[in-house]
């Protein structure tokens, strides 16, 4: 009996799993280490969280693996016995979607913007293969593409677990189907792919003008607490730094392109100095330059 209990515990534990941080009454966040996905951090790089209402729990984003999703469920159990009523996926990105399978196994509905759901169906098998290569088969055991079974097409107010949530969509921004989740009662916003703190965003399916507009819209809400997709929680003013990066990056790449700088050279030389010490800069900066450069070429 004792042995059984021990083995259950051993299987349940996920090394590196952060403890949930209480952000506001009933609002918790798991904060990832904000670095690149690597075996040392078990892929626990992004933020996610949950909101406990009088009738149940709403989960926002699910981490990079099935194992992480299970660890979230266990951590939630330690906070509340109430059932998980809904999972919201803020956007299609590998660090946010693959824990969803653990919740599906428990019969929890999974919601995303329709465009995010479509992209998960079409592309996440490729991202999953990439993660398996980076983190290994063991870490990714049980992970599978989990297509959301509930979708919204735009900004929608819902009631979940007895709490009012505003699912905010500002059009294509960091991805075609970004949602930010605002808990009406506490005023806490889960910003998903729209905001990164201390880590430059990886441009994947972005539309920079739409993204900047989305940040302006969020800024106008005058929020006290924002949980970014990556990095430490911040006040509403702090989200504009993500916009600063996008604007400066975009301008710098356009300048290089107009001056006839080749792509390879641009990837070496185009910098956004104010962000050089942000996490992921060495890896993502040249990739972001390439992405914008190739878009300019197509115009």
């Amino acid at each position: 009996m004792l042995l059984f209990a021990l083995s259950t515990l051993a299987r349940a534990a996920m090394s590196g799993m952060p403890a949930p941080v209480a952000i506001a009454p009933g609002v918790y966040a798991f904060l990832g280490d904000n670095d690149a996905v690597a075996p040392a951090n078990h892929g626990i790089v992004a933020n996610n969280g949950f909101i406990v209402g009088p009738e149940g729990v709403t989960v926002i984003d699910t981490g990079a693996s099935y194992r992480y999703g299970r660890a979230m469920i266990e951590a939630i159990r330690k906070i509340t016995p109430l059932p998980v009523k809904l999972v919201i996926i803020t956007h299609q990105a590998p660090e946010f979607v693959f824990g969803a399978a653990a919740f599906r196994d428990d019969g929890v509905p999974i919601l995303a913007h329709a465009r995010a759901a479509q992209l998960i169906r079409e592309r996440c098998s490729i991202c999953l293969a990439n993660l398996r290569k980076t983190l290994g088969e063991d870490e990714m055991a049980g992970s599978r593409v989990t297509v959301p079974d509930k979708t919204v097409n735009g900004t929608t107010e819902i009631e979940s677990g007895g709490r009012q949530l505003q699912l905010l969509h500002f059009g294509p921004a960091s991805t075609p189907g970004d949602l930010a989740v605002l808990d009406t009662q506490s005023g806490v916003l889960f910003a998903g792919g729209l905001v990164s703190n201390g880590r430059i965003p990886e441009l994947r399916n972005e539309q920079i003008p739409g993204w900047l507009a989305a940040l302006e819209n969020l800024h106008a809400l005058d929020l006290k607490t924002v949980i970014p997709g990556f990095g430490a929680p911040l006040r509403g003013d702090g989200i504009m730094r993500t916009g600063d990066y996008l604007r400066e990056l975009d301008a710098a790449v356009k300048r290089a392109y107009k001056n006839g700088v080749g792509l390879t050279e641009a990837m070496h030389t185009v910098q956004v100095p104010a962000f050089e010490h942000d996490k992921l800069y060495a890896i993502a900066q040249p990739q972001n330059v390439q992405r914008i450069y190739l878009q300019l070429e197509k115009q």
Partner: protein
Amino acid sequence: MKTTWSGTRAVTVATLAAALFAPYAARAAQPDDDPEKVARWLDFKEGTFKGRAIDPHGDAVIKLDAPARAADAAVVPIAVNAQFPQTPTHYIRKLYLFIDENPEPYAGSFEFTPESGLATIETRVRVEDYTFMRVIAETNDGKLYSAIRFVKASGGCSAPADKDEDAAERTAGQVRIQAEGQAVAGKPELAQLMVRHPNRTGMAMNQVTRNYATAYFIRKVSVTYADKPVMIANVNFSISENPNFRFYFVPGGSGELKAHIEDTKNKQWDGAVAISAQSGGAQTSAMK
């Protein structure tokens, strides 16, 4: 064109490569592997260079610039930078590009002349997974030098949605050729050639139609200045969609830079730009 290439189709199309590929296909290449022990490379080396020595430290001749990590395996920018100017007595005649883990590892060759000025070439390639990428330079005295990089390419997370392949084929062949900045007579001048073309591998399944479109790519690019060859590329579908090449030529007073392009359906296109070079002496930004 969702992924670079994948699945069984890669094996059936590249049957020749597959036989060699199979023995170690299960294990991904690693940066600390010995690049001189890759079976497919050794086979190509023997077949192409027939026992001639290759100087593995070709840094004084060429440098290969490729990203250590590529976010989009379908478009990996690379540059082969020549380390000395082309002269009639000492020049790089040919560059061979080989990407070990690709279904067809030999991506092609680029030929140069003294009129090229500088045997530097920049383009974008498809890369399969984690692989060594190597360039062999052959100088006019017949010596061989190699430069090698390890590339980790992943991708697809942001792959563009499947395109209309018929439309891509209909618009194929728009050619743009241009010189960068003011040309100066007698100095190597940077040129850029862009060709709109799907450059299909024939190995990617269209996620909408669930069909494989046949391989269809540009196989030859010939560029001349004043009717003398400056860059000839014999390439295949390892070159990314909408092939893009940056290379050098040495302008005289005035002359035309012309490109002739042939694809695998024997369609041919031409592009040209008149170059009026300033007389020498002035500095040009193209020189690095």
